[in-house]
């Protein structure tokens, strides 16, 4: 198990290195003077000179990269051009908002979809299955921002049950915070139910045709036991991979939800930064996202041995 963990970590490191090179290169690709880009047009000559020296612009690219990487490692992601805030704490604060929404939505969706897909596979081609497949296909065809707008329109504007704009941090008041988060979480949950149910159903169908399922029935195991003990543990792996991918993709996709519901989240941070040409934030967000993505995949991979003992033997 430890060997597996070490091996997985080891493959993550070169990836992160390449990613940081890519992010570094990206900003350098933007036409214009890097220092002006970093400080904005209205910066004073001293700061410009100071940053020019810090970034080592007179030195070779690898050295610049090294300097930059060194500062990142220290947690110094620079300052926002527009607000002057330190980038890292800002990103973390915004990330917490997005993370709550994403994690709750995916967890809720998984709780509903995994058993849902299993039941659909068990009743393949019967009425229950057809209904479940139709519903999931419909749900995943809806663009998330449109669904959000519709829910907003209906529950927020027409019925007035839920607030349309605004946000209260969890730390202040969980109850109030939840009220603002219901709609965004609901939107995301519905979409992800569509996605996860399909995968859960497909992999359950695969497993149901395997011999050890027939063997379990031949032993006299009741259907519920067959599904829960024999089908689920083996069918779960591809769904788990998918959940990892979804979590990663939502790091970007959350931006539209945050726009619809006007939430101060991570996605919105990056989008606003792009509009404002606030490059330190853009750079920081990209790097942050990549690291989170790699971490998420790592956690997902580390959980595999829990339901597939063959993995560690590899």
């Amino acid at each position, binding site marked *: 198990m430890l060997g597996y963990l070490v091996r997985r970590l080891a493959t993550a490191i*070169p*990836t*992160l290195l*390449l*990613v940081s090179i*890519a*992010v570094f290169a*990206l900003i350098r*690709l*933007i036409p214009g003077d890097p220092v002006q880009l970093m400080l904005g047009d209205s910066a004073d000559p001293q700061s410009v000179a100071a940053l020019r020296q810090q970034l080592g612009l007179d030195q070779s690219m690898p050295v610049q990269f090294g300097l930059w990487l060194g500062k990142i490692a220290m947690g110094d992601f620079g300052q926002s051009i527009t607000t002057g805030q330190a980038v890292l704490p800002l990103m973390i604060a915004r990330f917490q908002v997005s993370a709550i929404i994403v994690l709750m939505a995916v967890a809720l969706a998984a709780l509903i979809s995994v058993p849902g897909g299993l039941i659909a596979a068990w009743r393949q*081609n019967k009425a229950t299955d057809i209904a479940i497949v139709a519903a999931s*296909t*419909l749900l*995943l*065809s*809806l*663009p998330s*921002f*449109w669904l959000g*707008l*519709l829910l*907003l*329109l209906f529950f927020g*504007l*027409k019925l007035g049950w839920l607030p349309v704009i605004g946000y209260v941090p969890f730390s202040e008041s969980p109850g109030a915070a939840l009220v603002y988060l219901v709609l965004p979480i609901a939107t995301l949950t519905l979409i992800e139910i569509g996605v996860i149910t399909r995968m859960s159903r497909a992999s359950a169908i695969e497993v149901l045709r395997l011999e050890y399922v027939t063997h379990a029935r031949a032993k006299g195991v009741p259907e519920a036991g067959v599904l829960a003990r024999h089908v689920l543990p083996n069918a779960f792996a591809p769904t788990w991979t998918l959940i990892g991918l979804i979590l*990663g*993709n*939502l*790091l*970007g*996709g959350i*931006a*539209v939800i945050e*726009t*619809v519901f006007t939430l101060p989240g991570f996605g919105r941070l*990056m*989008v606003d930064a*792009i*509009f404002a040409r606030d490059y330190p934030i*853009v750079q920081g*967000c*990209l790097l942050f*996202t*990549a690291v989170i*993505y*790699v971490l998420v995949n790592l956690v997902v991979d580390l959980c595999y041995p829990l339901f597939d003992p063959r993995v560690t033997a590899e």
Partner: protein
Amino acid sequence: MSKPRFGLGLNGMIGIVLIGTLLIVAIVAAFWTPYDPLSLSLRMRLKPPSAAHWFGTDEFGRDVLSRAMAGASASFLISFLTVAFAITVGTTLGVVTGYLRGWTDRVLMMGNDALLAFPGILLALSLMVVMGANRHGVILALGIAYTPSVVRVVRGTVLSLREKEFVEASKMIGNSDIYSMFRHILPNALAPVAVLATSMFGWTLLAESSLSFLGLGVPPPAPTWGNMLAAARPHLESSVWLGLVPGICIALTMLGINLLGDALRDRFDPRMTTA
């Protein structure tokens, strides 16, 4: 339930009908729309659907139906070009690296995995930063963002095909590696690529709509379904049709693509080609 061998089943047919219709609309819109999508008319602002304007007018008095059609044109074209780019580049890289393996493979896959470390949208966003927000930028950014997925899938397919005995047989006959790659592996890899291309068309359409919704895609006044929805936000309650039309268009397109993609996947199920 027996899987249809030549037809695509009911779902597939519905998918084809949906996509087909929208495709025809998109092509037609390139040449003709009921009204000019860009012409303003402040007199006709925010009019609900009527005989003259089937989908009503927007906040600048522009005909929504024409804008939706033009949007179809724009979205389909962008998605199509993006998919063409990603599939061509991705398949070539995937076949080469999957067949040759060794150092080429390892280096290429490390780069590929690094790109895959970014969620598609974010990668596209960052590339947009460099290229600027316009039609070409979107195509290039999304194309580059989605190529790594194609490389991965194609490489996977090629790796499994390599182990098949008919590839070894080709070597036994005396065929060169390049010949085997093109004569034996590529044709058999096309089926999964076709399925992937269909799904990818859907992802890019959604991605392009999202980017436009955020204001980072095709800039107004040129209509795409995404930026139409963005513009509809302030008028959501009063002029519901503005919010419904573009969304329904996207949803129908996605539905058609998903149904078609599923039907194609069933059709090309490897289990069906072995007796």
